Every structure is written in C-alpha cells, then in structure tokens.
C-alpha cells in the first residue's frame, strides 16, 4: 500500500471503530472485539507508515482546501511519527485494560465510553499527522470535545464540575491564545505549513517573537503549563483507563507535541536562539516543573499525585523545546514515549488497586504489595522510569535533556532536572515502600472487593496472600512495565528516527 493510503487508513480506522462500537452497543462482546480489532489494525497501519518515514520519505496528503491557501493537509515527519506510534501503540494495552476495568466495575454507558475513546485516538492521530497549524488546531479541539464525555463519565455533580474546569481551561487557552497565535502567524507569514527551519524567520522580530511563543505555549493548554494546569487534576474524576491513556498519553502529549512542533517547524530553533525569545519559557517551564513536583509531595490521593507528577513531567518537554538545541529537542521528543510508557503503567496500577480494593488514598495502601505483588512491582518499575534511572526508558530522555541544557549553556537547568528527579523519588518511592514494607492497618485481608476479584483464603504462602485485580487489568500493566525496560534498549531506534528530523 502507498504511504498516503496507509495514512488515511490509520486515520479512518479509529473513526470507523467509533462508529462500529456505537452500533454494536447491544452486544458487549462484539463491541469489545471491534475495539480490539480497531486498535490492532490502527497500530499496524502506523507501523506500516513507519518504514516509509524511516526511509526518509515525507508522506504528504492534502484533503480539502478550507480557506484560500489553507487546506486540511497531512504531512508526516519523524516527530509526528513518534507521537502517532505512542498514541496508537499504547491504545492496545489501554483497550484491554479498559475492558477489564469497566467490566470489573460494572460501569454504565460503556458503549459511549469506548466510542469516545476511539474518537479521541482519531483526533490524536490527526494531530500527529497534521501538515499545518489549521489541521492541528482542528484536531486539537476535536480531542477536547471528544474527551469531555469521558471525563464526565460518571455524570454526577463532581464529574460535571470537573468537566467545567476541564473544558473551561482547555477551551479558554485554545481560543484566546492558540487561535490568536495561529491567526497572527497566518497574517504575518501567509502560510501555516510546518516547514523545516520554521516560517517565522524574517517575518517577525523583537518582543513579538516572545509574545507569540507565549501565546503558543500557553495556548496549548493541554501541555498544562502553570497557571493553566488545573484541568489535569480535575480530569482525574474520570475512570482510570481514561486517565491512563488520555491524561498520560494522548491529551497531554498533544499539548507538548504542539509546543514542540511549533518550536521546531514554525519558529525554527535557530531563529528562537538568535532572538533569545524562549529564555523566559525555560524559566516558566522550570517553575512548573519544580512546583508541580512539590505539590505532588503533598497529595495523598494517588491519582492526584500522579496528575501533578504528569504536570511536572510535561514541563520537562516544554523545557526541552524552549532550550531550542538539537539535544534539547531530541530529549523532549524522546520524553514523549518514555514518560508515556512509565506514567501509563502507574495509572494502570492506580486503577488496578482501585478495582481490587476500592482504595484511592495512599495512606490506606500500607502493605498492599503483599496482596498485589504484580501491580506494585509494575508500579516500582514505572516509578523508576519516571525518576529516570536506568535500565528504564526515562533515563535516556533525561540524559538528552540535560545535554540540551548544557548545549544551550544553561547549566542551571541541569540542576533543575536533577532536583526534580530527587523530588520524584520523594513522591513516588514512599508509595512503593509502604506497600511492601508496612503492615496493613486493617488486619483483614479482604477489603470491599466484592465479585470483582476471587479470593483464595485457604491457600497458604505467597500465593495465598495474593488477591490481584482481574487478569485483563494486570496483564496490560505488566506489559507496559516491561515496556519501560524495553524502551531503554530501543533508544537507538528512536534516536535514529529523530535524527531524520530536519531541524535547520
């Protein structure tokens, strides 16, 4: 198949999947089969395109001209390829996990849930493939609206309020800042195409560049740069699979991907360095990075802690983009898959703990490691990746980010990165330590797990204490935990892909 048609397939399959899921709502097994088939086929399409991109081919496709000289167009380059791989690849374990979680919980409205999920992946892939800012913006907003029903899934007052914060933040930033930035770029340059070396050089200068960069950086509200980060913790009322895929992978990465893409292909890193326009963004990102880590330390709700950790990790990527050096951009791009794999593991674990024990608070999780050894083992591995220790993938992205800071002659940010790593040890390790080394406060082994899990009280020894979440939950989280290790060894491949990126 030609790369263009593969690209269209990769886009249309999730859309068709969403339709299929809504049509098969009456037969849950068929519906779930549709979801799984869609995830697998979408991922294989993305893999199919990968070989063309690796061969150095630029895949371009123009769909329809919306405004004069402004088409909806797709243009696949290494950065987008990377994001597409992450979004479509991690959709597979999440779909499996989601089925296990939703069934384990006996949730309502599962059809809507899976249909919106597929729609969100459609939007994420559209963002990854976007060939100009208009297309990116279109899919960016589609992603916001398609995930709203997921965030407010429970339909109660809490969900409704969280939905308001979610939509309020994302729509406000995208309309007031991002759209303004897009229109201004169009007005100044007469094009919105992503071009190597950027399109703004020679068209804008002075403080205008810094202002425009600010509009883009804060406009991509999904990147959760402070002070527009509140939506992320608020969105944690969603069912955990949503938090896992969308708030660790698709949505937040759409934000930082936008920032990265704009820095590389709209501003151009040389132009940014020359203008010195991104200096303030480095400090803004560093501030978010550290303060979110500190806030994470104070949170006792597991998902809230992970949410603030995500905010902090996203700021790494913004920082890498703002450094505007080759190593910085590489590190930022690498951090997309590395953080995604690590954080999705952590969210899966949080969800598995909730399914098995209905516990959300970290203080209640003493001694839970004995009961759920696989889950907590995976949690340990994921945490190590987030902290950035080898042999987990997270080590590499931090390495490149630190190199980027050195390249930009900004040693202070190396210090910031290291400090943040220490803070992440502080907010992640106690969870693992308490799970394995503390005794459970309530002596009774079985909590309010109900029919979701099976208990085997009569068996003695190691297996006797084990009372895990359903297999459909545990297997994906073990897989992604192994994935973080695999990513450590896969770095030459990602580096090779990113080296194809034309920065200048």
């Amino acid at each position, binding site marked *: 198949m030609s790369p263009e048609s593969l690209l269209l397939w990769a886009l249309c399959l999730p859309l068709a999947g969403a339709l299929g899921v809504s049509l098969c709502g009456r037969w849950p097994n068929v519906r779930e089969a549709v979801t799984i088939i869609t995830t697998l086929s979408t991922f294989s399409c993305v893999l199919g395109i990968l070989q063309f991109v690796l061969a150095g081919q630029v895949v371009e496709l123009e769909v*329809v*001209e*919306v*405004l*004069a000289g402004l088409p*909806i167009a797709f243009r696949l380059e290494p950065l987008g390829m990377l994001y597409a791989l992450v979004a479509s690849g991690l959709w597979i374990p999440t779909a499996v996990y989601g089925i296990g979680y939703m069934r384990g919980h006996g949730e309502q409205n599962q059809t809507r849930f899976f249909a919106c999920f597929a729609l969100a992946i459609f939007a994420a892939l559209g963002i990854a493939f976007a060939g100009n800012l*208009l297309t990116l*913006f*279109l899919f960016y*907003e*589609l992603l916001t*609206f398609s995930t709203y029903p997921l965030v*407010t899934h429970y*339909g109660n007052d809490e969900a*409704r309020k969280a*939905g*308001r914060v979610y*939509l*309020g933040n994302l*729509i*406000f930033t995208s*309309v*007031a800042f991002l*759209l*303004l930035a897009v*229109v*201004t770029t*169009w*007005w100044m340059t007469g094009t919105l195409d992503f071009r190597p070396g950027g399109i703004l050089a020679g068209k804008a200068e002075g403080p205008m560049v810094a202002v425009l960069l600010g509009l883009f950086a804060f406009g991509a509200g999904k990147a959760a740069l402070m002070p527009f980060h509140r939506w992320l913790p608020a969105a944690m009322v969603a069912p955990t699979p949503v938090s896992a895929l969308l708030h660790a992978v698709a949505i937040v990465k759409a934000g930082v991907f936008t920032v990265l893409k704009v820095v590389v292909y709209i501003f151009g890193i040389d132009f940014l360095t020359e203008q010195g326009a991104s200096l303030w963004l480095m400090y803004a990102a560093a501030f978010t990075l550290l303060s979110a880590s500190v806030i994470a330390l104070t949170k006792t709700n597991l998902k809230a802690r992970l949410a603030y950790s995500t905010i902090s990790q996203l700021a790494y990527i913004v920082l890498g983009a703002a450094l505007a050096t080759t190593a910085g951009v590489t590190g930022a791009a690498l951090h997309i898959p590395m953080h995604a794999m690590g954080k999705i593991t952590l969210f899966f674990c949080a969800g598995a703990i909730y399914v098995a024990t209905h516990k959300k608070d970290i203080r209640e999780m003493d001694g839970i490691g004995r009961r759920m050894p696989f889950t907590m083992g995976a949690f340990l591995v994921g945490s190590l990746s987030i902290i950035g220790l080898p042999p987990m993938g997270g080590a590499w992205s931090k390495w490149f980010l630190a190199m980027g800071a050195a390249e930009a002659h900004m040693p202070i940010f190396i210090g910031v990165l290291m400090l943040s790593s220490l803070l992440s040890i502080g907010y992640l390790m106690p969870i693992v330590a308490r799970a394995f080394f503390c005794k459970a406060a309530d002596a009774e082994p079985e909590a309010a797990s109900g029919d979701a899990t099976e208990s085997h009280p009569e068996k003695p020894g190691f297996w006797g204490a084990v009372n895990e979440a359903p297999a459909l939950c545990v297997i994906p989280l073990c897989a992604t935990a192994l994935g973080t290790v695999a990513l450590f060894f896969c770095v030459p491949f990602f580096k090779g892909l990113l080296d194809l990126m034309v920065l200048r």
Partner: protein
Amino acid sequence: MSEHLSALIVVLPLLAAPVCLLLRQTRMVRAWTSIVAWACLCMALTLLERVHTGGVITYAMGGWDPPLGIEYRLDALNAYLLVIVTAIASVVFPSGVILTDTSLPEGKAHLYFAALLLCLAGLLGITSTGDLFNVFVFVEITSLSSYTLISLGKNRQALTAAFSYLVMGTIGGTFLLVGIGFLYQVTGTLNMNDLALRLPELLGSRTILAGFAFLMVGGSIKLAVFPLHQWLPNAYTHAPAAVSAFIAATATKVSYYLLARIIFTVFGAAFVFDALHLHWLLMPLAIAAMFAGSLAAVFQTDLKRLLAYSSIAQIGYMTLGLCMASETGLTGGIVHLFNHALMKGGLFLAVACVVMRTGSSSVNAISGLGRKMPLTMAAIVVGGLSLIGVPGTAGFISKWYLVVGALERGWYAVSVLILLSSLIAVVYVWRLVETAFFGVPEHEVCEVPWTSWLPTWILIGATLVFGIWTDVTVGGASAAARALLGVTP
C-alpha cells in the same frame, strides 16, 4: 421568461400569498407554500450562478427605464442574500414544526401561511430592488407580516411582544422613509445607482447628512444593532418557534444587507468611513453587542430568549465586519451572515422540536433529554459549537475572517475581543449541554418525527459541511464583498 427571473422571484411569493386563501385546507396550503419556497430557491440559485458568470443583472420593472422606473439590480451581494433567504424558507416552511407553538384558531392556518409568504416576498423584494422607495415598501410588507406572525405565538405575551415590535419597527420604517425623503429632496432621484452618481458632489449638504443619519438609525433598528435591539428578544421569544427560526435567520440578514447597501453603494465607503468615521461609532457598539448579548444569553432561562440574545451578539460580529470596510472584514461579516442564518435557523428549529414534545421552551424543559431526543439534542450541541466557533463548523470560518480582518486593520485589541467574546458563548452553550445530558428528565417524551428533525438537521448539517467546504460560502461572500467595495476581480 428567464430574463424576468429577477422580478419573478419577488412576484411569485407575493401572488402566491392570496392563493393560500383560496386553497384553505391546511395540508394543501402547506404543500403550496413549500413548493413556492422551493421554486424561489431554484430561481435564486440560477440567479446567483448567472451573476457569478455574467456579472450584474438589471431589470427594468414594467419596461420603464431607470432612474425613472423601478430597477431591480442583482450583483454578487444580493444574489447571495436571495439564496440565503430562500434556502431558509424552503427548509423551514415544509418542516413538521411549522405549526407548533402557534395559537391559530381551527381552520385558520391558511392565513398564517399567507403571512409567511408575504414576509418572504417582502424580504426578497428588499434584497432585489435597486430603488430606495421600493425598499421602504418592501420593508413595510415584511414588517406588517412579521407583526402578524409574531402575535400568533401561544402565550398572551406574544401580543405585547408584537405590539412593541410594531412600535419599534414603525419608528425604524419611518426613519428610513424620512431619510429617503431627504435624499430625494436634494437629488431628485430614488434609484440607488443614480444616487451614488449624484451624491458625491452634494455630500457637504446638511440635508444629505441628516438623511444619512436617518437611514442609518432606521436600518440599525431593523437590524437590532446594540443598543437598538430591545424589540428583538421579546419578539423572538414569544413568536412561534418556527417563525423565530425563519425571522431570525432571514430578517436581520436582510436588514444587514440594506445597511451595507446604503453605506457602500449609495454613499460610498470613502464618505462614510474616511470622512464621517462611522466605524468609530459602529465598532464600539458592535463590540458592546458581542459582549452584552452573549452575557445576557448566559442568564436566560428560556431557550428562545437565550438564542435571541445570542443573535444580538452575532449581529455584533456582522456589524464589526461591516465597519472594517476591507475585503477580508466584509467577507467575514457576509459569510457570518450566511453561517449564522444556518446555525440560528437550525437551533430555533431544534427548540421548536423541544416545544413540540414538551410544550415548553424553558431551559429546564430539555433537562435529561439527551437520551430521550438524541437527534434534537445533538443538533443543539452542534449548532452551539458552531456559535462558539469551534473549528470544523461554519462559525469558525467567519470568526477566522473577522480576526484576520481586524489584524489587517491593525485593530489588535479588537481581534482579541472577538475571541474573548466567543468564549462567553461556551458558557451559555455548555449550560444547555449540561442540562440536556446531566439533568434528570422531567418529561416522558420520545424523539420527534422525521419531518421535524430532518429540516433541523439539514441546517445543522450544513453548518458542518460549510465548516470544511467553503468554496460556496466564502467564495460567494468574497465576491459580494468585492462587489460592495467596487473592486473588479
């Protein structure tokens, strides 16, 4: 025959109205009005196509040559308007909700349809004619028929709403007439093109200035420019929902056309904007309308009133495009005219569907209807997204042009204000979404029949289509903008 088309499009609905009285049977009358509307749509499309290929079409009524006789003159702008008006009519008239929410006595429906046709004829007349006095005549035909239509609302408040509209409408009409009189007194002509030729030498005259002021105020009342909008919310709220759909989508658009025609064709942009600096008056009013209208919409408890206040805000956007007086700005204003007609028409029809099932148009009426009436509620959501200006919907296209137009003029603050005010739309649209999908159902209802949801979805679907494929809408609007500015392509 075909050279008479530009007259026929007005004459047909005008003559078809009395025929309703002969047909009498509701079903036959409904079919007849629909057929007339469709025929007008076909004529409008033919005319638009002809204008785009062959340039301006002029038609001397009764064979009397202008400027003595009445001239019908179609350029890219009014041909475009004709298509909007007839398209809305041909969707709304056959719709199943056309009689919903009315207080017609048994067996009197034919009068209602006659009024609808008269209103259509008036709107088409204002749009096609090139003669100022003829404009006034058609303005009165439109107004009188719409007073009738509004007073047919179900509640007794409809009568007071119609009456206050009558008072305001008459004042507006009188202002127009006085303005026309002043111009005639000085120039001795009523033909717009002839006026445009004679006026430049006379522009210093106080009579002309006073005439211009009267025309502007009269037109602004008809258009409901902030702060002359007071009649609009009541009229739209208490009129039958389908009438609101038709009038909201067409009447203000035609008034907008009239203002644009007077400013750009009769007086010329140089006089109005360079000498009189009208934009420094209109622009603050437009911005105030954008914010006041949207903010007022947030606090409404009635769906129709909410949409009416939103209309005031949208009229603000269109007026803003008008005062940019550039090709981009005018294109934005005119394309918003088209897009807003689609979305507001669709939204009012959706409200009519709600009224049809629940008997009420309060916001609480749609509580929990997301499951009961999924098609209607989805229409409200999509129409609302288009009002916000989400990309992929028609509303985005018009906002895009307006923002670019503001940047081109160097009005940076205005471009930010356009975006900020559209954020207020998020609030009132999201109130509806939350009520429909999170609320507890108050009524045991089912989805409306296809005759009702299909017209709604034709308009709402069109907002989606024209959010992506803009050749027709933007192409037509920019041709119209060029025609207004006198730029030859």
